[in-house]
């Protein structure tokens, strides 16, 4: 591909881009193929050189690497380190890559042997504690969400290509939800993490009358004690709040200061 594109008079390159997945459902990569109306334009933003789920040729010459999934086995650590060495920019794609995602729920038992036995009986199987990418390598950008929102991916990739900075909203989902004119789910007796979760999804779940599960992790200055008070005031069981807070791994450290 040797087209020349310019933005504000400056030539823009087609960065060689690769997609990889560690332990995950590969749903975030599938989201890349969704939003069909703009898919072809999106694919024209970059030169994809490695995307195992959709193409056969594979090249290890790339500048941008998107990595989906969390680290759960030794070979994934090796692969991640190799990717980091090659990529100029490493992007953590989705909640598993950013926080461990639902996979990290197995860590809560603090007993890997029991976990293995529960699923595989006595058959030997290799696994380790689930960790996000940032526990092993420097992550340049994070795209939050389970799944990621395609509009946000498009915006971030466009900004990457143009060399613009990428900033996430600092405010919580609650603000987007209120702006959308939704009925507050607390008033319907539904648990919701909207007050503490980082915005950017346009209140995807509350728009569909499901309380937020916190897949995007904490907003800046998230106040978990105040959340607990709101939940208590609405007679929502504490367990429902903790189930949500621990679901995707984004609140793991914030939760340590809470009383169970």
């Amino acid at each position, binding site marked *: 591909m040797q087209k020349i594109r310019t933005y504000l008079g400056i030539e823009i390159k087609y960065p060689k881009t690769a997609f990889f*997945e*560690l*332990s*995950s*459902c*590969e*749903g*975030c*990569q*599938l*989201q890349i*193929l*969704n939003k*069909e*109306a703009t*898919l*072809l334009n999106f*694919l024209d933003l970059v030169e*994809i050189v490695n*995307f*195992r*789920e*959709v*193409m*056969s*040729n*594979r090249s290890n010459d790339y500048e941008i690497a998107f990595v989906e999934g969390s680290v*759960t*086995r030794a070979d*994934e650590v090796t692969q991640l380190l190799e990717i980091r060495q090659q990529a100029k920019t490493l992007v953590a794609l989705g909640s598993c890559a950013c926080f461990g*995602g*639902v*996979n990290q*729920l*197995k860590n809560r*038992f603090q007993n890997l042997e*029991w*976990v*293995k036995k*529960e*699923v*595989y*009986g006595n*058959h030997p*199987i290799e*696994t380790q504690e689930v960790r996000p990418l940032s526990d092993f390598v420097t992550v340049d950008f994070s795209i939050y969400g*389970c*799944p990621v929102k395609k509009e946000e991916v498009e915006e971030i990739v466009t900004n990457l290509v143009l060399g613009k900075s990428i900033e996430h909203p600092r405010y919580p989902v609650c603000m987007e939800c209120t702006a959308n004119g939704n009925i507050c789910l607390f008033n319907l007796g539904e648990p919701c993490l909207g007050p503490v979760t980082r915005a950017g999804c346009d209140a*995807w*779940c509350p*728009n*569909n*009358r*499901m309380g937020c*599960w916190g897949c995007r992790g904490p907003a800046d200055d998230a106040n978990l004690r105040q959340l607990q008070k709101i939940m208590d005031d609405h007679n929502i069981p504490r*367990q*429902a709040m903790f*189930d949500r807070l621990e*679901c995707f791994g984004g609140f793991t450290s914030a939760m340590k200061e809470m009383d169970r």
Partner: protein
Amino acid sequence: MRNAINCDIKIKHLTRVEGHGNIRILIKDGQVKKASWDVVETPRFFEAILVGKQWENAPVLCGRICGICSIGHTLASIRATEKAFGMVPSMQTERLRLLLKHMETLQSHILHLYFLIAPDFLGADSAIELIKTHTEEIQRAARLKLLANDGGDLVGGRRLHPIRTVVGGFTMLPDRRKLATLRQRLYAALPDLNKTADLFGSFTIPDFFRETEFVSLQANGSYPFIGGQLMSSDGVVKEEEDYLAMTNEYMVDHSTSKWSKLSRKSMAVGALARVNNNFTALHPSAREIAGQLGLQPISYNPFMNNFAQLVECVHVVQDSILLIDELLGSDWQESRQQVIPIAGHGTGAVEVPRGILYHWYQFDGDGRITKADCVIPTSQNNGNIHHDIKAMVQELADQGKTDHEIRLLAEMLVRAYDPCISCSVH
């Protein structure tokens, strides 16, 4: 006499499939020494993760087993939970769930046919390459996929990891005007599916047959997708709750996914199994497309699974039109019933794009999960894929095929099953 061939093929992380699987083929002097399908995906331990969680977590967590069939996992999870609690969904909820299921089937099959399979038959590396050479076809694929995904958004709130689907029904009902528009778009998609049949009908399907046992839900008046009796083409019939007698999971050394078998050394699930087992329950226009593609039950050619998916696309579009007519023909009822957990267990069997899926949960009196089991279509297919590779590679070796041909056909064989590998390991 031809020279006996030698070949050594190692495919690490097969492309254009979901998840991580390897193919290993070793032929010496025309004899297949090794032909193997190895699943190397990392396990995520969902069955352990569920233990101790309240019932309402199950569909949210289990939908995340798979990025392609998250709707199917969510619905199987909900069904298992509702059955454990002795709940019966309303007719309206059943219709909406089936419509949502159809949208997933259409989305997944179109993705597989155009993006994962078509490049092999058109001599391309990927659908991205086809954008330039087969613009019309790729635009058609995008149109069909968009339609299915929009339908998923409308009914489930989100195409991937649906939001509105909960134990007891739906958090919200779709806008009736948008349902009417979806109906029109489904109707308008039928010519696109006919053109898809023309395209795929022009491909030469490899001539390979191996007898096996096909397992699926059993038709009870209609082509089955959600719940009911289980059947096999060898004559086994079981109740949904007896799913373990159909799956018989076991471990092999070269796979992190479990394997299954029933009456033979391997079994197959998926579109071909469903079409083979329930052909007469298909919509007449789906049967017509099957005839056009030369797919007649019972077909033992695994490559026919691609055509069976296309036949199902026609069926689900036609059936979705009927479902929307029924939904719009009556007023909305309450979207969601109250959930009262009781101690017990329940099984949810759902036909997802790649075959029959089972979720089974046991609950204590507080509605907390004490034990869970999920049996995934691809894990049921792994044994069949493995034995198909062995049989096909021996035939190809006898015909004196080249390394390149053997490699490509082995890859195409695995792709025909549309394996969902991370799902199978979960």
